[in-house]
C-alpha cells in the first residue's frame, strides 16, 4: 500500500481561481493546514497541471476565463478514471440553480466566499476520509477480482489434472448414456466407468457432500482406486471397501460420498449393485416393469472398515433392460416456482416415454420441460446403462490406458498359495498385475485374466477340492456343487496351488508361459475333446483356454496345466491405432 493511504501525509491540493487575491488567500490557508498546494489561473491550466502531476483534491472556481470550472471538472474527472478525486467548487454564486449546476458538472461539493478556514479544514478532512475509503474499497475490489481470476485459473488447471486422473474410462461405450455438467467435479459429482478384465464393466456414480475444491480433492483418490482396482480384476465389493477405507481416512467429519457401484456382467446377464445414499435407481425391464434400486447403505466414508458392508445386490437382467442411476441433482432440479422435479415426475417421465425414445432421453426431456432450463445449468448427473449381448461390446476392454513405461520383458516368477488362503483369497488380481507390467500384455488383460481364472478355478475346484463338473449339468446338481465347494473349502489342509509365470521376448512380440500346478489327485483330462460338447461350465472353460492359448497341456494326471500365450507388436499397435478414432 502506498503512503497516500495513511492519514498523516500532507495532501496534494490543486486550486484554480482567476482572482489573484482569492487564490493567494486560499493557497495560504491550505498551506497553513499543512498541505502541498499547486495553483492555476484558469481551468485549462488546472487540467494541464492535473494531467502532469495529479492531485488528491481539486478546488475550482466556477467562473473562469479560457476554460470555466464546469468544463475543467469534466476533464479532471475523466483523467482521474476510477480514482476518486474530490472536486470542490469555489463560488460566490448564491442562487440554488447555479450551485446545483456545479454538482451536476461532477463537483462533489462547494465552498462559498468569503472563505472560512474552519469550514475549509472540515471539508478537506471529510473528503479526504471519503477518498481514502474509496481507495481502500477499490483496492479490495481489485484484490477480490485478482483472487477470483486466480481461483478460476487454478480450477481450470485442477480440472485438467482431474480429467487426466479421472478420465471417463469406457463411458463412451455404446450401451452407456450419461449427462454430467462439464464442471461437475466442482459440484462434487463423479461418474467413472471401467471395463473389467474378465469382461463386463464396473461403474461408479458418486456425489460428494460440499462443493468446489474440497469435493474435487476427495474425488481424486476415488478415481485412482476405482480405475486401478477395476482394471486389475477386483470385484465391485473389493473396490468399494478400498474406497470407503480411503475416504474414511482422508475426509473431514461431515464430508462423505453418496455413491452407487454397478458391476455389469453381460455374459451372465446380471447386474450387481450397491447403493449407498444415492436416490433410488430404476431398472427398466424390457417388458415395461420397473424395479427400484434402493439405497441400503450409508454413504462411502462414513463407516469404519469393520462395520462397512460391501455386499452387492444381484439383479437378473435381459438384453434390452435399462438401468438408470442419478445424483440428487436430478430429483432436486427446481422450476421457477421453487418446486422440485421429484420421484413422481421422474416416474411419469419414464411412463410417458412409451416405445418412443430411450428412458434416458425421456428423463432429460422431462427435467428440461419441468425446469424450463437447459439441464446443463444444473448439478444434474444421470447415467443410463443398457444391458446388451456381450458380443456388441467387443473391444471395450481393450481401451484400458497404457503406461508409457518400458516394463520388464524377461522374467520368471513362482507364486504358491496354500491351505486356508485357498478359500479366502483370490490370487488372480495379483497375478494379473504382474503380467500387466509388460506393456505389450496390457491390452490383452481380458484374455490373460480369463486364462488365469480358468486355470485357477480348475485347479481349485477339480484338483484340490475334487469336485466333479458333471454335477453342474442339472439345476439340482448346480446347487449341490456350490454347497459342496463351500463345505470342502473349510476343511482344506496340506494343499497348494502354484502358478509359475515366465515371460520372454520373441521376434515379433513376447511369450507368456503359465504353469498351474496343484496338490490334488488329478482329474480326468484325458478326453479334453469330450468336454468340448459345452455341457458344463468347466467344459466352456477348457474350450476357452484352448482358443486363447497357443497350446494347452495337462500333465501328471491333470495336476499340472501349461499354457503358452503369444502376443505380437503388430497386433498391439493396430489396436492402439483403432482406439484413437
Amino acid at each position, binding site marked *: 500500500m502506498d503512503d497516500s493511504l495513511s492519514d498523516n501525509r500532507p495532501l496534494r491540493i490543486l486550486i484554480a481561481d482567476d*482572482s489573484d487575491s482569492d487564490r*493567494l488567500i486560499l493557497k495560504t490557508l491550505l498551506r497553513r493546514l499543512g498541505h502541498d498546494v499547486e495553483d492555476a489561473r484558469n481551468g485549462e491550466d488546472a487540467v494541464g497541471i492535473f494531467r502532469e502531476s495529479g492531485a488528491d483534491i481539486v478546488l475550482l472556481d466556477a467562473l473562469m476565463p479560457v476554460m470555466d470550472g464546469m468544463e475543467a471538472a469534466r476533464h479532471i474527472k475523466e483523467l482521474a478514471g476510477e480514482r476518486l478525486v474530490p472536486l470542490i467548487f469555489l463560488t460566490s454564486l448564491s442562487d440554488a440553480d447555479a450551485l446545483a449546476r456545479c454538482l451536476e458538472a461532477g463537483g462533489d461539493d462547494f465552498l462559498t466566499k468569503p472563505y472560512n478556514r474552519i469550514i475549509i479544514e472540515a471539508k478537506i478532512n471529510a473528503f479526504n476520509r471519503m477518498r481514502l475509503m474509496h481507495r481502500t474499497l477499490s483496492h479490495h475490489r481489485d484484490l477480490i477480482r485478482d483472487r477470483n481470476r486466480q481461483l478460476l485459473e487454478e480450477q481450470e488447471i485442477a480440472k485438467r489434472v482431474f480429467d487426466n486422473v479421472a478420465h471417463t474410462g469406457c463411458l463412451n461405450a455404446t450401451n452407456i448414456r450419461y449427462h454430467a455438467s462439464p464442471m461437475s467435479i466442482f459440484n462434487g459429482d463423479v461418474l467413472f466407468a471401467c471395463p473389467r478384465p474378465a469382461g463386463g464393466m464396473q461403474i461408479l456414480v458418486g456425489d460428494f457432500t460440499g462443493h468446489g475444491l474440497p469435493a474435487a480433492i476427495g474425488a481424486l483418490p476415488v478415481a485412482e482406486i476405482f480405475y486401478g482396482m477395476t482394471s486389475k480384476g477386483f470385484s465391485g465389493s473389493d473396490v468399494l471397501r478400498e474406497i470407503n477405507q480411503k475416504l474414511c481416512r482422508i475426509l473431514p467429519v461431515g464430508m462423505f460420498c453418496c455413491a452407487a457401484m454397478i458391476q455389469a456382467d453381460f455374459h451372465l446377464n446380471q447386474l450387481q449393485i450397491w447403493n449407498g445414499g444415492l436416490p433410488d435407481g430404476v431398472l427398466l425391464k424390457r417388458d415395461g416393469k420397473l424395479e427400484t434400486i434402493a439405497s441400503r447403505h450409508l454413504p462411502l466414508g462414513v463407516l469404519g472398515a469393520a462395520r462397512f458392508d460391501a455386499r452387492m445386490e444381484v439383479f437378473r437382467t435381459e438384453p434390452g433392460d435399462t438401468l438408470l442411476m442419478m445424483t440428487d441433482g436430478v430429483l432436486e432440479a427446481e422450476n421457477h416456482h421453487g418446486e422440485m422435479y421429484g420421484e413422481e415426475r421422474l416416474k411419469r417421465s419414464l411412463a410417458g416415454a412409451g416405445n418412443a425414445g430411450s428412458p434416458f432421453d425421456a428423463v432429460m426431456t422431462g427435467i428440461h420441460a419441468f425446469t424450463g432450463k437447459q439441464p446443463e445449468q444444473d448439478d444434474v448427473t444421470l447415467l443410463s446403462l443398457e444391458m446388451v449381448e456381450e458380443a456388441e461390446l467387443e473391444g471395450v476392454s481393450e481401451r484400458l490406458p497404457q503406461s508409457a513405461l518400458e516394463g520388464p520383458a524377461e522374467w520368471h516368477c513362482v507364486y504358491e498359495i496354500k491351505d486356508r488362503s485357498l478359500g479366502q483369497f483370490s490370487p488372480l488380481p495379483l497375478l494379473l498385475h504382474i503380467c500387466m507390467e509388460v506393456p505389450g500384455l496390457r491390452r490383452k488383460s481380458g484374455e490373460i485374466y480369463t486364462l488365469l481364472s480358468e486355470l485357477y478355478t480348475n485347479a481349485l475346484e477339480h484338483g484340490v477340492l475334487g469336485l466333479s463338473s458333471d454335477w453342474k449339468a442339472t439345476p439340482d446338481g448346480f446347487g449341490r456343487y456350490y454347497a459342496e465347494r463351500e463345505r470342502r473349502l473349510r476343511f482344506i489342509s496340506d494343499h497348494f496351488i502354484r502358478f509359475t509365470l515366465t515371460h520372454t521376448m520373441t521376434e515379433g512380440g513376447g511369450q507368456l508361459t503359465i504353469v498351474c500346478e496343484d496338490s490334488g489327485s488329478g482329474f480326468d483330462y484325458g478326453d479334453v475333446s469330450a468336454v468340448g460338447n459345452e455341457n458344463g461350465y468347466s467344459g466352456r472353460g477348457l474350450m476357452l483356454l484352448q482358443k486363447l492359448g497357443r497350446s494347452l497341456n495337462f500333465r501328471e494326471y491333470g495336476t499340472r496345466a501349461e499354457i503358452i500365450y503369444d502376443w505380437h507388436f503388430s497386433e498391439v499397435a493396430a489396436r492402439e491405432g483403432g482406439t484413437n478414432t
Partner: protein
Amino acid sequence: MTDKPHLDQEALAELQDVMEDEFDILINTYIKDSSDRIAHLRSALEHKDADSFSKSAHSFKGSCINIGAPRLGELCSEAEKAGRDNRLGEASVMVDAIESEFGQVEVTLRRFLE
C-alpha cells in the same frame, strides 16, 4: 444604495492572522487586481459585451467578499445582474459607483498597511 460597511474590520483581522507576513502582498495584489477588473468592466462596456461584463463583475464580487469589502462586493453584484439581464444602459453609472467605492476602500486599506 447599500448600507453595508466599506470594510469589514473583523474579516480583515482574520485575514491578517492567516496571511501573517504575506498580508501586505495580499492587499497589494487585491488593489492591483481590482484596478484591472475596473479597466476590464469599462472595456466590456465599450464593446457592449454584456456576458464578459457580467462575468468580470462576478469575479470582482468574489474577491471583494473575500478581502472584506462588502459594500464594493454588493455594487459588483448589482453590476453582475445588470450584465446578465443585458441592461448595459444602467451599467455605466454602476461602474462609476464601483470605481468611487474602490477609491475609498483602497485608501482605507493602504492606511491599514501602515
